[in-house]
């Protein structure tokens, strides 16, 4: 036999805890990055409105300029979206594991549970997006709304839009949630976080309560809850994708976009879970409970969702490309022009699908800890590239437009590092609170000895 049967009675009573003092250097570095980044970001948001970056118009080639705050708003949305999708995926895998009554992943289930509760720091990190200066830059329909509302000629916003922007007139009821001039965007932002956060905390709470009691009832509660919460989760992520990413260009239509966001979240989050699991294993954790079988199962899910992502991302592209309707093609038109065209082909298509698909085909690749982690790191990189590709082309300048691009990319990197440091720090803190695996789960023994 490849590994010997492990009885839970031989495991330490309280499970294993992550020892943060052992990685004190890393947490100190993350804390430094978070503090410096947050201060820098605050300065960029507050004072950036006065600093201008020169550029050229995308279509006419004329010289234009935009403020640092405008550029940084896109950077912030990009970084926020990347880490939001990772937390989304964490919640998805937790919900799915409970709803499908699975036992194989009990050993690693604490990791997605902990990833999902990062919705709380992400809620605070997302707040800058709600300020008028930021949101009216990113989501131009809000700008058009406020211009129409201020014009004062028509009796209401709806009437004003009826004459000035017929598309927004038709979308008004969704966008404002029938709340007059207040964008419905803001209450929706909090509704998404409420639904996702409640789901994340409820599931983690039940799981953690079992660590000491070993009671079977929380498992049953989590299963019932997950079946009911999955539709709410799907609705939240679909409309969050519509509001935050698709809404960057309110004139673009794609009913597929929510699924695109979901597929990217699921695959990237599984990749992150593999990276964390293998790294913890290499540092002496999980030694008694984790085997190559678990990595094989996670690798298979990562492989399956790589294919699923390709399937829906290509379907969306293919239908729009073939039908060739101007309203729909605008999304791909700017992403298939100039430097973005190479970016689309090499980083999004080949990077996000072909490379991981081929590398993950052999069974040995999924069972070898180092190889599967290397592939998972590549998928994470590709996911970041996809998020960048969703958001940054909407900022305006061409990818290869010098020298503004250098400044803009530096702003993107700053936002990414800031949010990354904050979320990584809170993740490690919440991971260290409880055992690394659900040590009281009734199906732990079944999970440890899983063979697939």
């Amino acid at each position, binding site marked *: 036999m*490849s590994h010997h049967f492990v009885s839970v009675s031989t495991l330490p009573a309280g499970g294993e805890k992550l020892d943060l003092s052992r990685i004190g250097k890393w947490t100190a570095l993350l804390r430094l990055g978070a503090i410096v980044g947050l201060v820098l970001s605050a300065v960029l948001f507050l004072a950036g409105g006065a600093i201008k970056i020169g550029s050229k118009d995308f279509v006419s080639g004329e010289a234009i300029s935009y403020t640092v705050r405008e550029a940084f708003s896109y950077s912030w949305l990009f970084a926020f979206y990347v880490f939001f999708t990772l937390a989304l995926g964490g919640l998805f895998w937790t919900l799915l594991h409970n709803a499908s009554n699975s036992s194989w992943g009990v050993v690693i289930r604490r990791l997605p549970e902990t990833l999902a509760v990062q919705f709380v720091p992400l809620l605070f990190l997302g707040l800058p997006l709600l300020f008028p200066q930021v949101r009216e830059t990113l989501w131009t329909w809000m700008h058009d709304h406020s211009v129409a509302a201020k014009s004062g000629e028509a009796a209401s916003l709806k009437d004003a839009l009826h004459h000035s922007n017929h598309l927004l007139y038709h979308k008004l009821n969704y966008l404002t949630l029938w709340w007059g001039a207040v964008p419905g965007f803001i209450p929706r932002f909090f509704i998404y976080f409420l639904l996702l956060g409640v789901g994340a905390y409820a599931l983690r709470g039940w799981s953690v309560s079992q660590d000491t009691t070993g009671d079977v009832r929380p498992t049953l509660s989590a299963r019932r809850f997950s079946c009911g919460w999955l539709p709410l989760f799907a609705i939240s992520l679909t409309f969050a994708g519509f509001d935050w990413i698709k809404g960057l260009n309110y004139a673009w239509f794609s009913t597929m976009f929510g699924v695109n966001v979901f597929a990217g979240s699921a695959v990237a989050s599984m990749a992150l879970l593999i990276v964390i699991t293998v790294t913890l294993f290499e540092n002496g954790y999980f030694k008694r409970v984790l085997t190559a079988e678990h990595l094989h199962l996670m690798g298979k899910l990562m492989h399956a969702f790589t294919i699923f992502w390709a399937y829906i991302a290509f379907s969306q592209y293919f239908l729009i490309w073939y039908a060739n309707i101007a309203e729909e093609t605008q999304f791909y038109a700017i992403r298939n022009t100039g430097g973005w065209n190479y970016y689309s082909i090499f980083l999004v298509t080949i990077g996000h699908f072909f490379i991981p698909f081929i590398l993950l085909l052999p069974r040995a690749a999924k069972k070898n800890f180092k190889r599967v982690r290397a592939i998972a790191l590549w998928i994470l990189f590709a996911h970041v590239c996809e998020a960048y590709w969703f958001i940054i082309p909407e900022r305006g300048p061409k990818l290869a437009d010098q020298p503004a691009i250098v400044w803009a990319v530096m702003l993107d990197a700053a936002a990414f590092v800031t949010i990354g440091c904050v979320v990584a720090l809170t993740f490690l803190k919440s991971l260290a609170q409880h055992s690394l695996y659900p040590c009281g789960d009734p199906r732990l023994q079944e999970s440890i000895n899983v063979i697939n």
Partner: protein
Amino acid sequence: MVSVLPLLLLPLIQLPPDSAMADAPLKRTHGYLAEFGSVAELFHAAEKCRDAGFRFWDTHSPFPIHGMDDAMGIKKSILSLFVLIGGCTGATVAILLQFGTQVGLYPTVVQGKPTNLFTLPAYFPISFELTVLFSALTAVFGSMALMKLPRLNHPLFNSVNFQRVTDDGFFICIEQKDPQFHPEKTKAFLEGLGGRNIELIEDEVA
């Protein structure tokens, strides 16, 4: 059980060299079948068979047993390589038939799309389907070929006791074609493993 006992006498029967007894069935030894009482017994017996170096032998149980592949020393199947080749063939055929004909041989403008490398997305659905089709057919027929299926009968079905393999029986069969097979030593080996109801399985060849 009584009906099985005469079978044990069969190896003692000397078949005549000529056609004098042409209507008596000609039999070929398939191997020894031994029964084991539980999953654990079968598992440990399989480990010992593996360590003894047998090559042509198999375990039979009513349900799959986790870890049995390792206990039997079975290596990874070559089927996945066949499927990979099948899938690559499907993708190549699809691309050649579409791209080769509509871009190479006779450039065809459809819906104002270009006739060059950038037409490739139009050929993806069929390439995808053909890759899946060829892979799936290779998987089905490849696995059947590796299992030597279809076949009309199997010598093990001659054993009445073996019928319990779909209910509560756990069996090991060491085949006669194994280089280490020996009429007495193999039987003694199986007895040493704790095998019960050891039968010599024979196949009617004519």
